[in-house]
């Protein structure tokens, strides 16, 4: 390509300004307590618009998709467009059940915390589709590196809720021996990595784990998880660098639920761009997806998992969703956002949307739904009762022995730890 010679070069300094007072820009959410919710800032593509690329696509080729939004379910509950996959009835039933049980579990544990039975709890309300649907495309041996808000990964596997509750209560049956804060699970048998209380640290570990699988010629893939706020952490960067450089078989998930405690996603960098757009700068193909659309989550997760399994490398996915509940039991969102925000969230409730789709397809009904809800509530009540019988924070006499503190610091206890344990008198 040649260009005609520009006739007269532009004179230097033609745009030079005289000194001007600078000022600091501090992003601010559109609405604060008392305001009418306003989600006009969310870039939403029409259902079906964002294309489905070939599996072996490069980051550069699909760089514009980061600004689109993969959506499958339309407002009427119909599946539309290139990402619409005809899922078997039992897959949908399983997905709906897992999402509903996640929510019922959250409700029960939130209440347990309020009753002083545990120190802390974190709900995933409104975000259930993402972890549930992604888990459903994974295979045995794959490893997820979740944050504290991916309990859906466990419900999608019908993981024993008693084991989760025992951890939350730090009771005598807690597999983690009362060491970890509630919800910071570790369930290796479920492909669920030990959750860190430090944000973002595990994103690069997921990449390293996936590199390990590739180094060994294994066929396992890894999934990293991070929140919108936590993308600002440095480990986000190192994860993307390593994933891009070594083409690690990993799915890198960003759950953009619009909030990081009291900070809206603009404080993490979501004001002038979208998080998915980071992929291309690291050579990692990236998509932006309606995270409250179970079918879209399933389809894109499957696509990304396939890329990883065929040694085509990493995929970055920004899931757009909304943190409907408080950040944690220590948080009161009415202090920093409109009380009724969630009801106005334009992408709806993932459970309601899947329910609508299933009703549409004749697989489900409102009555069944109500009945299922009641059933799961009851299941959680009963399980909690049993878990509580093994101890809670109000019944410390049931807790794991203090001597456990010294176990598993190392594989073999060194002399100084033995001495300290003796000092403690246990």
């Amino acid at each position: 390509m040649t260009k005609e010679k520009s006739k007269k070069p532009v004179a230097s300094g033609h745009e030079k300004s005289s000194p001007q007072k600078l000022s600091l820009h501090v992003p601010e959410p559109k609405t604060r307590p008392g305001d009418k919710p306003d989600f006009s800032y969310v870039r939403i593509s029409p259902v079906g618009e964002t294309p489905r690329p070939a599996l072996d696509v490069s980051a550069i080729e699909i760089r514009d998709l980061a600004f689109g939004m993969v959506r499958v379910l339309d407002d009427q509950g119909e599946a539309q467009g290139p990402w619409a996959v005809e899922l078997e009835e039992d897959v949908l039933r399983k997905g709906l059940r897992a999402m509903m049980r996640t929510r019922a579990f959250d409700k029960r544990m939130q209440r347990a915390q309020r009753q002083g039975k545990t120190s802390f709890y974190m709900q995933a309300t409104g975000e259930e589709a993402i972890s549930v649907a992604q888990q459903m495309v994974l295979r045995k041996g794959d490893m997820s590196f979740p944050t504290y808000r991916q309990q859906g990964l466990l419900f999608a596997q019908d993981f024993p809720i008693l084991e989760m509750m025992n951890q939350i209560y730090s009771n005598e049956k807690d597999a983690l021996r009362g060491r970890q804060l509630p919800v910071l699970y570790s369930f290796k048998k479920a492909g669920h990595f030990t959750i860190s209380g430090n944000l973002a640290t595990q994103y690069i570990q997921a990449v390293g784990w996936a590199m390990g699988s590739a180094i060994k010629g294994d066929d396992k893939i890894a999934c990293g998880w991070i929140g919108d706020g936590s993308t600002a952490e440095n480990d986000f960067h190192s994860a993307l660098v390593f994933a891009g450089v070594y083409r690690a078989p990993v799915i890198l998930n960003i759950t953009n639920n619009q909030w990081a405690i009291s900070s809206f996603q603009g404080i993490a960098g979501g004001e002038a761009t979208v998080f998915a757009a980071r992929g291309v700068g690291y050579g990692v193909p990236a998509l932006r997806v309606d995270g409250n659309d179970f079918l879209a989550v399933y389809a894109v997760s499957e696509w990304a998992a396939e890329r990883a399994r065929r040694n085509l490398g990493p995929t970055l996915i920004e899931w757009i969703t909304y943190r409907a509940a408080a950040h944690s039991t220590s948080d009161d969102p009415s202090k920093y956002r409109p009380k009724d925000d969630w009801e106005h969230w334009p992408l709806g409730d993932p459970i309601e949307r899947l329910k609508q789709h299933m009703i549409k397809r004749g697989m489900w009904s409102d009555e069944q739904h109500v009945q299922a809800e009641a059933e799961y509530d009851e299941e959680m009540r009963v399980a909690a009762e049993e878990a509580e019988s093994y101890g809670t924070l109000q019944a410390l006499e049931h807790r794991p022995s203090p001597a456990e503190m010294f176990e598993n610091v190392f594989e073999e206890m060194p002399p100084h730890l033995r001495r300290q344990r003796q000092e403690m008198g246990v």
Partner: protein
Amino acid sequence: MSMIEAIRDAHDVMMARDENVVVFGEDAGYFGGVFRCTEGLQQKYGKHRAFDAPISESGIVGAAIGMATYGLRPCVEIQFADYVYPAYDQIVSEAARIRHRSNGEFTCPMVVRMPVGGGIFGGQTHSQSVEAIFTHVVGLKVVMPSNPRDAKGLLIASIEDPDPVIFLEPKRIYNGPFDGHHERPVVPWSKHEDGQVKTGYYKTELGKAAIAREGREVTILTYGTMVHVALAAAEETGVDAEIIDLRTLLPLDQEAIEASVNKTGRCIVVHEATRTSGFGAELCALVQRHCFYALEAPIIRVTGYDTPYPHVNEWDYFPSPERVGEAMKQILEA
């Protein structure tokens, strides 16, 4: 005033006096911080002087260093000390050495505040005491108050200090003095003498210890929450302990320490951090060196154990008045 209010007040006083003082941190702007230590500052001083930061501890400190070298006096918050490690490089390799390596051309007057310590069922990532990884760093000052009055005075002194200060806030005593008796109700600071905080500007000099209790039988070197635990231990055992509240760990008030140990001839070091290579080690090294001939018994350390901070077994880990009391008895018998 609670310690939270005292810290907020120190910010307020300094932001009013010096428009170069700026404050930021995760959730520290609009909301005022998860412990509410910066509440109201954005509303009062504007978004450009008190604002929310991305969740990037190293970015927060790195940006603060840039601002400090520009000429501001940033006072930034790390949400929990357990999350300061990503910022460690910026603190150690940069903030602490900019003055020295530029021979004073560039300086870094900056405060990095963070809540430390356990006792709130926060598990291993909301309970750590990180002082020792900073006291080994040349070019830093390290401060830890034990009550609202000192908290305000020390924070003001830290903000005015021409060099970087690590300001550690024992979160267990944010709302009231806590002596380790978790089974008892918390007494608020308003009921405590050290909760009577002067209004307006005052400084508590960095590098000066306070004597929290005078005594003759044994010296207790401690800081933060453990001052209150040590006081309780003295009261409960009846041992006439001299309790030194170090307040500033770096630079250390070696004079006050030596004077006390030379008087009592016995020394116990109490801190919540894990023992090995904790700041207590440095205290032991100094005391044995400078008070060797006065010492009648080996210095005892009462500390957290060399394990991660537990969740449910918190009270077995937390150095209790009982443990301190036993050390007192042991050292008096030695």
